[in-house]
């Protein structure tokens, strides 16, 4: 980390952001008491997923796109399956949908626990990282590890392994779990649910900067039932409501001259935010009673507009995911078959699910043999990019009196609020690097 | 050990078979055939209806498919996909545990007495023969395998004579089937013509005692001749044979025969044949220690002479090429084995043929070695 002062101005610069997934850098320029430039710069190399999906078979995106992100591979698998099944005109039976939801709970539990305890909490408690934090707060880190372990156990039973699960296929699963296998997870999940409720209490007591933002929230909202995870249509806090298939007409990616990044915006409306704050603010009425109680106890209202309090919302979502996992396990009575056939046909399909850090959109066009003609993937971090920079701008402007060290630390924290997944996001970024012939 | 009281023959019906399973289950963990993952495997068995009722198998080089039979036979298939060895010679066997706290070091053997002995139910003659091979390779040794000894000692064996061999089978040529040899406690011959019944024969005092407690009727000449006919027909229907004449010498004497290089073109060195083989017993000793724990464990894990690591000495692998590894396996199995243990390592079950992902046929390979070097190899099957 470096920071330096210049005559007449200040530049805050973090070359390598810590405790985020992937490699990013942050750059804030202050001139004459005003923030003149804010850039979240991604140094993660591009990996061209949409390009090499072209020509692949329609059955392959769950395995291929999982590799975009090791933290939220299930999100990629779920959105990919949804989009391809949409293209092929197949919908899966409710039992399969329930198992997908259960698998997704595993990822939420694992990812949220990682973010809360390993990436975010050390900011509030004043440590460089969780391992340093463990020396003084072994109980807290231990609790986080226990919750994370429960999420990973669920992922492992249902997905085969927690990173890049192998059991997901277009149309369902390769193998159904045994009821006994799932029931065996119950005690661990119940314990973790208790630990998650404790976690809500813990993080609700952190010191939060007084900072709210007027962003438009965007999330999935299921037509009926429960908190959004693997299905739903899109709603925004500005009152928009549209089907996932209309995502491309409502969301545009703009290239701003002052930034190296493409910023997703709602057509004619501006930047928006996806992720826990958006989900909570748009769907808090759908929380399970247990999660709703935890949220109320933590003092969260019907919506939450302070990005720093996202850690509280994540904790509430942990309770929700664990509670939902237990409910799904209890109601699991097998399925007629592990998967339904998804025959290829020509067409375009759209899929969106709620990754732990926000809505993840996939679109595929197939030919009659199922070869992929075109693919588009919009990850959550891409959508939040503009808001993250806007947060930084507003946040820094109000705290110019802080010294560089503290301001830098708080800026990093402001970025971590979003749990940015830079590995996911690389394909949307422009990098100012010179071209080199390989 | 010969005993006057064995050799009793009687007839069991299907409920009687359940009575047999129940009787075994009272004292043993019963392991028997059942359908799982598209194949007949061996696993814990409680009820007769778990058996592969009405199921047969089509097995040939590199291919296995379940097939529905037209009758309700429960033993109407050939060798199970999983050999019985894992219940006496498990894939991973902890051997010893070392406690090292920095000042004192102690080593303790790990010899978990099985809670209950195992009863192998419905295994085939080839499996029985394989156990006899293991007895020689693992027990009749200067240092016997204590874990095998212990599991083997309590073993109760109900063998099911094989009446429907697969295309991959060649036990007749190895002299190991289809009728079971010695070493079983009870033997069953299934008769599906007419009344569905099982001719049961005792082969040990323990078998004799158990048989006496089962609801049987006496066997008559009709039962006996039906069983004989079924086994004779099974033997006659066997299409594969191992050319055993002078085979050991052919193998041991021709390490440079071009057939080794030819088979190496096809062989994937994946190790499937060795691990599907009911007699292969090669293992590696692995040591595991958890970070920060004073306890380390040594365990024995199945290994295969087809892996590069298997013959690793400091500096490198002795058998770097696939041809050398295939030669090692086959030469050992059918040649050196005889010198080491006084018996062939092959029982003719055909599992190495069926479960080879590219369908390499050990009997064909044996014939290739009989071909004078320099003669054109046969065309590879498309």
């Amino acid at each position, binding site marked *: 980390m470096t920071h330096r002062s210049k005559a007449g101005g200040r530049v805050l610069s973090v070359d390598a952001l810590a405790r985020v997934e992937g490699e990013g850098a942050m750059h804030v320029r202050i001139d004459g008491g005003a923030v003149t430039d804010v850039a979240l710069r991604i140094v993660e190399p591009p990996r061209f997923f949409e390009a090499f999906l072209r020509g692949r078979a329609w059955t392959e995106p769950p395995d291929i796109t999982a590799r975009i992100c090791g933290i939220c591979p299930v999100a990629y698998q779920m959105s990919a399956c949804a989009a391809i099944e949409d293209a092929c005109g197949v919908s899966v039976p409710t039992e399969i949908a329930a198992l997908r939801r259960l698998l997704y709970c595993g990822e939420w539990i694992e990812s949220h626990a990682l973010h809360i305890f390993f990436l975010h909490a050390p900011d509030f408690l004043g440590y460089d990282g969780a391992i340093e934090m463990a020396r003084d707060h072994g109980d807290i880190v231990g609790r986080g590890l226990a919750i994370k372990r429960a999420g990973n156990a669920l992922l492992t039973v249902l997905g085969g392994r927690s990173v890049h699960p192998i059991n997901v296929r277009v149309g369902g699963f390769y193998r159904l779990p045994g009821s006994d296998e799932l029931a065996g997870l119950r005690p661990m999940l119940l314990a973790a649910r208790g630990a998650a409720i404790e976690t809500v209490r813990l993080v609700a007591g952190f010191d939060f900067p007084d900072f709210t933002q007027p962003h438009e929230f965007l999330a999935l909202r299921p037509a009926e039932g429960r908190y959004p995870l693997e299905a739903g249509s899109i709603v925004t806090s500005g009152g928009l409501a549209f089907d996932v298939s209309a995502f491309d007409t409502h969301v545009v990616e703009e290239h701003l001259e002052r930034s190296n990044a493409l910023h997703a915006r709602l057509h004619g409306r501006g930047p928006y935010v996806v992720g826990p704050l958006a989900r909570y603010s748009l769907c808090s009425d759908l929380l399970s009673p247990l999660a709703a109680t935890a949220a109320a106890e933590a003092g969260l209202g019907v919506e939450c507009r302070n990005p720093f309090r996202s850690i509280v919302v994540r904790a509430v979502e942990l309770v929700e995911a664990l509670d939902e996992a237990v409910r799904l396990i209890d109601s699991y009575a097998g399925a007629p078959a592990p998967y339904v056939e998804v025959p290829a046909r020509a067409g375009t399909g759209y899929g969106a699910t709620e990754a732990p850090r926000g809505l993840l959109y996939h679109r595929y066009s197939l030919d009659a043999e199922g070869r992929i003609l075109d693919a588009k993937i919009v990850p959550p971090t891409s959508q939040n990019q503009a808001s993250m920079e806007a947060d930084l701008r507003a946040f820094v402007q109000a705290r110019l009196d802080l010294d560089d060290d503290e301001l830098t630390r708080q800026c990093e924290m402001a970025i971590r609020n979003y749990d940015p997944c830079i590995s996911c996001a690389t394909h949307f970024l422009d990098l100012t690097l010179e071209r080199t012939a390989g | *050990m010969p005993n006057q009281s064995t050799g009793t023959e009687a007839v069991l019906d299907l409920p009687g078979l359940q009575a047999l399973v129940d009787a075994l289950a009272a004292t043993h963990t019963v392991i028997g055939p059942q359908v799982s993952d598209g194949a007949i495997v061996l696993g814990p068995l409680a009820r007769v209806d778990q058996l592969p009722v009405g199921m047969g198998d089509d097995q040939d080089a590199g291919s296995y498919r379940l097939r529905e039979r037209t009758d309700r036979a429960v033993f109407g298939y050939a060798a199970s996909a999983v050999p019985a060895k894992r219940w006496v010679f498990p894939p991973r066997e902890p*051997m*010893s545990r*070392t406690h*090292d706290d920095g000042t*004192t*070091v*102690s*080593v*303790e*053997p790990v*010899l978990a007495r099985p809670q209950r002995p195992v009863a192998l139910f419905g295994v085939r003659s080839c499996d029985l023969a394989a156990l006899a091979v293991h007895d020689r390779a*693992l*027990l009749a*040794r*200067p*240092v*016997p*395998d*204590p*874990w095998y*000894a*212990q599991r083997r*000692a309590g073993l109760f064996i109900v063998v099911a004579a094989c009446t429907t061999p697969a295309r991959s089978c060649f036990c007749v040529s190895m002299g190991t089937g289809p009728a079971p040899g010695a070493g079983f406690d009870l033997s069953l011959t299934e008769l599906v013509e007419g009344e569905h019944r099982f001719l049961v024969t005792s082969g040990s005092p323990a078998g004799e005692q158990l048989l006496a407690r089962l609801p049987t009727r006496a066997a008559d000449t009709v039962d006996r001749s039906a069983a004989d006919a079924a086994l004779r027909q099974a033997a006659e229907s066997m299409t594969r044979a191992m050319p055993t004449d002078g085979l050991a010498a052919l193998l*041991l004497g021709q*390490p*440079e025969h071009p057939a080794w290089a030819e088979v190496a073109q096809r062989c994937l060195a994946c190790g499937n044949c060795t691990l599907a083989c009911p007699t292969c*017993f*090669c*293992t*590696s*000793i692995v*040591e595991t*220690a958890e970070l920060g724990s004073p306890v*380390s464990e040594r365990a*024995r894990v199945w*290994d295969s*002479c087809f892996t590069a690591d*298997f*013959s*690793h*000495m*400091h*500096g490198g692998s*002795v*058998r*770097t*090429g696939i041809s*050398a590894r295939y030669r*090692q396996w086959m*030469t*050992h199995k059918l*040649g*050196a084995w005889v*010198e*080491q243990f006084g018996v062939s390592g092959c029982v003719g079950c055909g599992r190495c043929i069926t479960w080879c992902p590219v369908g390499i046929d050990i009997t064909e390979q044996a014939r290739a070695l009989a071909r004078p070097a320099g003669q054109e190899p046969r065309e590879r099957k498309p």
Partner: protein
Amino acid sequence: MSESAQEASADLDALVATGLAGLVPRPFRVDRSRRETADTVTLTLAPVTGGSLEFAAGQFTMLGVPGVGEVPISISGDPTWPDALQHTVRDVGGVSHAIASARAGDVLTVRGPFGTGWGVGDGEGGDVLIVAGGIGLAPLRPALLELLAHRHRYRTVTLLYGARTPQDILFAEELAGWRGRFDLEVELSVDYAPPSWRGRVGLVTALIASVAPEQTLALVCGPEVMMRFVTTELLHRGVPAGQIRLSMERAMSCGVGLCGHCQLRELFVCLDGPVFRADRVLGLMAVEEL
């Protein structure tokens, strides 16, 4: 319990006891570690509990480090004084590195001794020729010590030793002592030497001088290629193959012929060897990748 059941149970207990004795190691404490060369040390071990390890010259043990693993190492100590169990270990891999790094007081695990010995006594009344190459001197040291302990029973005793460089010579002090003896002929040769080396440079085979073929028992240990050449030379000089003994090396792991790693066609090197009569293994050594 019936009589036969009791018998069977006693048989089982005996089988299990014999098996465990061979397969479960005993802890031994390092008494001393002496550096022989840059990469080789000689460890002197004593049992933590129980009696000392009786062994025959030429046998090996499975020497281990708790939590790391075990490797076959020839015993290099004096068979007539088994209280000091010695192994000379070259640091060539993970486990041998851990063993070679052991210091006095550390505890190692030992299984064995395993395998056949040199059968030194078979040479009584005749000449004994020892040919060693490199680390191969280690398993021959017990043979030489046994010969010297009963020196009067033999006619000539000769040690021919080839090493890579003068710095790689094992047991250098002891060798100097042996060279001073009148009842033992010692010849050394190295592959590479600086001019300060006053000894011979060249192959160990070149050291083989006149032998009385029919009365000579030859004990040979070294890299397999070296043993092939030495055997060829001895056969050329008329020593019968049955009187040439070679110590083979393969990937011994269980030590008792149960794991299959060290098979050399029909032989288990751990059980039937490591010391073989040359006529038993010459043909096998000629086959590539056997």
